């Protein structure tokens, strides 16, 4: 087995284990920290896939901004010392596990049996990306030309979300 495959298996195992621990952990703070582990491993996987910019964004935005927001909210919510809720209905856990396992098996079967690796190849080969100056340059060129309108809409969406979050966090709603 070559080094990249071994690294992939390591990252995948740690990410999946941490994702399971997110659900199993009793303390929400622990859940957020396991989530951080998952996100960092997914970022490492992006590096394996040649998406360096996305790896940096994953660490900055997800691990840096979103998870810190989660941590703040967890600490704000924990002032009332109530016992944390667990599984409600007796059937909930087996049904949820069955649905999750069925979904995983279905997608895995589709991936293994169908011809998912066929399709029309694009023009952004490794050589083309290197000629453009690297992943960040190539991605930026497409983002500001082909995807300019969605990009601007996304920025407006962020503005709206900021105003909405400020409004929702007011004391008197």
């Amino acid at each position, binding site marked *: 087995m070559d080094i990249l495959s071994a690294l992939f298996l390591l990252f995948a195992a740690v990410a999946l284990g941490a994702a399971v621990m997110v659900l199993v952990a009793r303390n929400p703070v622990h859940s957020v920290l396991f989530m951080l582990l998952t996100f960092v491993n997914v970022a490492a996987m992006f590096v*394996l*896939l040649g998406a360096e910019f996305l790896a940096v964004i994953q660490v900055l935005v997800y691990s840096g901004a979103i998870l810190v*927001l989660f941590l703040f909210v967890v600490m704000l919510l924990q002032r009332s010392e109530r016992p944390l809720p667990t599984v*409600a209905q007796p059937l909930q856990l087996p049904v949820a596990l069955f649905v999750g396992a069925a979904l995983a098996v279905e997608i895995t079967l589709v991936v293994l049996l169908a011809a998912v690796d066929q399709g029309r190849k694009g023009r952004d080969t490794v050589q083309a990306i290197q000629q453009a100056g690297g992943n960040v340059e*190539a991605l930026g060129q497409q983002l500001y030309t082909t995807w300019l309108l969605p990009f601007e809409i996304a920025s407006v*969406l962020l503005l709206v979300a900021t105003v909405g979050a400020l409004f929702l966090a007011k004391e008197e709603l």
Partner: protein
Amino acid sequence: MSPPLEWYLIFSALLFSIGVVGVLVRRHVLIIFMSVELMLNACNVALVAFGRHLDSLTGQNFVVFVITVAAAEAAVGLGIILALARHKDTVDVSEMDILKQ
């Protein structure tokens, strides 16, 4: 030689399924919210893997937008959770049934 496309897709499927189980099984509203973020991440991995396989940067462009929307969603969603928790003083989703009454 990097790992084949199928490995990434299966990893993505497993991560997504874990997120689904989390939404179904937990009652803490924040854990449910975090499970949704897990599912978004699983989709991101699949998008980047397909883009890599097909020599296209479109998948990576999509992921940029997914992360943007996820950030906006997290900000608004956590605001809603804070407002709800102030209103009902609980983090249990099965007690959040104002719309049913």
